[in-house]
């Protein structure tokens, strides 16, 4: 190999950068990634849609989008019925009514997933009781 020094240096940089997730995870030392979710403190057992097969996990932002468009753009305020109780199409009054601890529910997924919904710039999250 000609210019071995430079080539080895270049390849070392390349492998080092490619292995970023490996050494970053070791350096951060957090170990395995696991999400801990707090069940709704008010004792409800059902969400606004099914949670089986990760449906709610995957689709909750679309539900919120739909609700928002319905309320803000179409001016309709329908209700959603969960377990016989009627709820408004509302972020703070419905979702956060059951999932009242934002840090221990929404954020414990969002922070590790690198998502920071801008919703809380305007909508209020329930305060810790």
């Amino acid at each position, binding site marked *: *190999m*000609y*210019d*071995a020094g430079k*080539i*080895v240096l*270049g*390849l070392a940089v*390349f*492998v080092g950068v*490619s292995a*970023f*997730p*490996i050494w*970053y*995870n*070791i350096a*951060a030392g*957090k*170990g*395995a*990634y*696991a*999400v801990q979710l707090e069940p709704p403190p008010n004792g409800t057992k059902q969400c606004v849609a099914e949670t089986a*097969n*990760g449906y709610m*996990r*995957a*689709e909750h*932002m*679309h539900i*919120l*989008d739909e609700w*928002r468009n319905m309320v803000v753009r179409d001016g309709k305020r329908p209700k959603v019925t969960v377990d016989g109780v009627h709820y408004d199409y509302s972020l703070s009054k419905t979702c956060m009514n059951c999932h009242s601890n934002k840090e221990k529910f929404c954020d414990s*997924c969002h*922070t*590790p*997933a*690198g*998502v*920071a*919904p*801008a919703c809380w710039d305007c909508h209020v999250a329930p305060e810790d009781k």
Partner: protein
Amino acid sequence: MKAVSALVAVIVLFAIAYMVGPSAKFVFGVAVPYAAMAVFLGGIIYRVAFKWGKAPVPFAIATTCGQQKSLPWIKHASLENPSTTGGVILRMAFEVLTFRSLFRNTRVAVKDGPRVTYDGEWVLWAAAMLFHWSFLVIVLRHMRFFTEPVPFFVPLLQAVDGFFEIGIPALYLTGVGLLLAASVLFLRRMLDAQVRYISLMADYFPLFLVMGIAITGILMRHFMKTDIVSVKEMATGLATFKPVVPDGVGPIFFAHMFLVCVLLAYFPFSKLTHMAGVFMSPTRNLRCNSREVRHINPWNHPVRVHTYAEYEDEFRDKMIACGLPVDKKETEEPKKAKAGEKKVDD
């Protein structure tokens, strides 16, 4: 036809992963990604160190786009024609980050008049810039899946990338940019008869592959949702060598990841390895100092030379005898210097 077979190849790859992936989670979620990464890293190292690294570059190849360093009163183009290592690094940085060579690429055409023009191919350059920068940002953004905690640059990039907050989740400009740029690059190959003529399946395949990756990615983010938490579990599992294959990962994810794996494994053995090749380009990575330094080919075959001084030593007596001018008057013992053998470049 070549484009069609390349498209069919990508569709088949997509279909395999989409249909088989969810029922062969370990294969598509662990074995294939590790294998693809190994082939990618090993392949690049093989190409650079054991293929290109074995090719001698005997000269300083001063292909220039500016005045080489010369006399003090001649203006030196220190970036176009660098004579120092620092200058070479700068030139390489500009090449890699802004594709200056491609920017300078011109194309001869005969226009009405008749008139010959040498226009730049700005559209090609712009599409290439959009393509590569989008790709880079996308790769960096994906680090949110592989690392815990999420590195600082990810939220930064996400904020800029999703600046317009179109939809929930916000549409990323780079996703659209990548797809758009790949489409322009593809249309250029299709619509321009000359470029179409020289295009091979190996040109279309990576384009369709990247389009496939972009489309599956955008679909997954906005239309065919998958459980991101499980995806991250799987990705961090790979990065920490504790592979897990959680449930809840949809078939579209396996298709997305499989296409990425194909791209990785295909990388070192195709034109895509220009990623490493650009750093190995002698016309970009050598100092243009052929006026300052005499470059001697280290691998030259030894050449027999007979210098004038040696010639005179040999014939001095005879030269003096017949009245020819000589450099040195007195006869010396002819130096038994290396018998007239010297290494010079030829």
